[in-house]
């Protein structure tokens, strides 16, 4: 056993792993933001609120419908995604001709409404949600005790991130999507229903947030403000990575999770701010972001 900067290497491995777990959430959320931004050119401020809705939906399914975690993991993204589709049809659609900032303002308003309604109905102290029985307990890895559920979080979010990347970058559907972003009129001329594609893309991005919410329910507090705490950090992640590429969003998410994890060991006082500081440095050196193309 050796030490790095006075911290035993064993403890360090543990912290790296934990950073990766938190990075999973950053990756899932910034991926959703990037997908939505790519297609709609809107920054979805309600993303955090939709993530929170995912966690609450899992709670409701368990307590009122008797449907366990695994059902929630499949059903909730569809439910919250459908909610996203409704929002896009009712509100966002009217804004595409205006400045993009209006999209930000509108989704900010929606975030306030959603968070406020949940806070009024469920208080803010949070609701309990158990780790599913099949994933309880953990493995002793020698350098740390890794709860099974946390291992599952890494695996599941990697799977979802990679399949999303694959669909968008490597399939025909993805090719259409990317083409529609570049030149909607032309794609429409090929007989593709672009508005519907936009609607579904927004729904998909929201579903990703909801998926992250279900994943978070058993380990974090299911509370109305769980999303707003996270979303601003995720914005910084997105600025660092640049929203130009799907892969960039994923890599930055995991990477920053690890960096934040290490900060918690070496300088815990800065663990809340480290991502913002990195953002400032990246802006100085590479204003377009690590993976961004200069607009």
């Amino acid at each position: 056993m050796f030490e790095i900067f006075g911290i035993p290497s064993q403890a360090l491995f543990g912290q790296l792993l934990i950073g990766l777990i938190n990075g999973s959430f950053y990756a899932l959320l910034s991926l959703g933001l990037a997908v939505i931004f790519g297609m709609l050119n809107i920054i979805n401020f309600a993303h955090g609120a939709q993530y929170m809705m995912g966690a609450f939906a899992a709670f409701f399914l368990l307590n009122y419908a008797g449907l366990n975690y695994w059902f929630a993991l499949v059903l909730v993204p569809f439910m919250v995604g459908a909610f996203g589709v409704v929002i896009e049809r009712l509100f966002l659609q009217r804004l595409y001709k205006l400045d993009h900032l209006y999209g930000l303002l509108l989704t900010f308003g929606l975030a306030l409404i959603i968070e406020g309604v949940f806070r009024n109905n469920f208080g803010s102290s949070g609701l309990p949600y158990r780790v599913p029985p099949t994933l309880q307990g953990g493995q002793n890895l020698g350098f740390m005790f890794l709860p099974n559920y946390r291992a599952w979080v890494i695996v599941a979010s990697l799977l979802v991130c990679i399949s999303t990347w694959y669909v968008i970058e490597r399939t025909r559907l993805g090719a259409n999507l990317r083409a529609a972003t570049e030149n909607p009129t032309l794609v429409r001329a090929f007989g593709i229903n672009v508005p519907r594609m936009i609607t579904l893309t927004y729904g998909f991005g929201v579903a990703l947030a909801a998926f992250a919410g279900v994943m978070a329910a058993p380990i974090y507090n299911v509370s109305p403000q769980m999303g707003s705490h996270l979303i601003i950090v995720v914005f910084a992640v997105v600025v660092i990575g640049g929203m130009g590429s799907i892969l960039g969003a994923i890599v930055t998410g995991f990477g920053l999770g690890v960096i934040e994890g290490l900060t918690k060991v070496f300088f815990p006082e800065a663990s809340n701010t480290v991502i913002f500081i990195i953002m400032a440095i990246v802006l100085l050196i590479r204003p377009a972001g690590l993976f961004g193309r200069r607009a």
Partner: protein
Amino acid sequence: MTTAATPVTAPAAQTSSRSVVAAFVVMVVLLLIAPVFIYPLFLMKALCFALFACAFNLLLGYVGLLSFGHALYFGWASYVSAYAAKAWGFNPEFAILAGALTATVLGLIAGSLAIRRQGIYFAMITLALAQMMYFFAVQAPFTGGEDGIQAVPRGYLFGFINLNDPVNMYGLVLAIFLAGFLMIYRIIHSPFGEVLKAIRENETRAISLGYKTERYKLVAFVLSAGFAGLAGGTKAIVFQLASLTDVDWPMSGEVVLMALVGGLGTVFGPVVGAVVVVAMQNYLAQAGQWVLVIQGVIFVACVLLFRRGIVGELANRLRIKL
């Protein structure tokens, strides 16, 4: 920001300046007699926020830059003013100036980072930087963390005017507000302001005309931060308190709401918006968290149906400039 935000109705220059002067006189008269009918502390709060919203509007309404982190300047100025008055025993006027100065410096730092990106990125960067400074405020010993800086003395203006007297306090707040308001008006209508508007309408063209737009944007950002700081410092002295609420992100959202409700890119819009929002918070205080929901609904309604805001709509109907 596209033209959608600011309907340019192109009225004759003379009528426009006359309507603005008339509206200004009405506003001053209203503010002078208002304490007869309305709880003075409420008025002072509204005035502080009105100045804050005017400062914000300078940036969004006239340069087209959406800063989602203006709580940073408002809140940190209120901390510095409160600390200067309490721990260093500054006179109120110097305490407020110290706050405004701090905000200006912070604006210079944050602004020079943020203007490296445009549009939505700019908004996200300002928000992230503000959140970073929020966390500093939570941890830093001198801010008192969650407790904030309390029991800040109002003290004596210039050493002899007792600000514990509500009349004197109101007079000072009114004077600061009017001074800030007139200065912002002057900036908007100076040649400098014309360049800002040109950047708002079409930055590329402004660049091709030979303007170093980055520099103009930065100066506007710093000015806006400074005025926001002036408002924050004043608020700290009035309420004898500087707290985390003033640096937290909902405060940044609130000031956007004020400008939006009143009318972006109008001179009086932010003032009206601030009064509406503060009144709403005050009279809905019993509704507790529903205030958040109502604010959200207003946001959505403004963006979808009411993009000109109250004053913008009014000006449009009357075909005048306000």
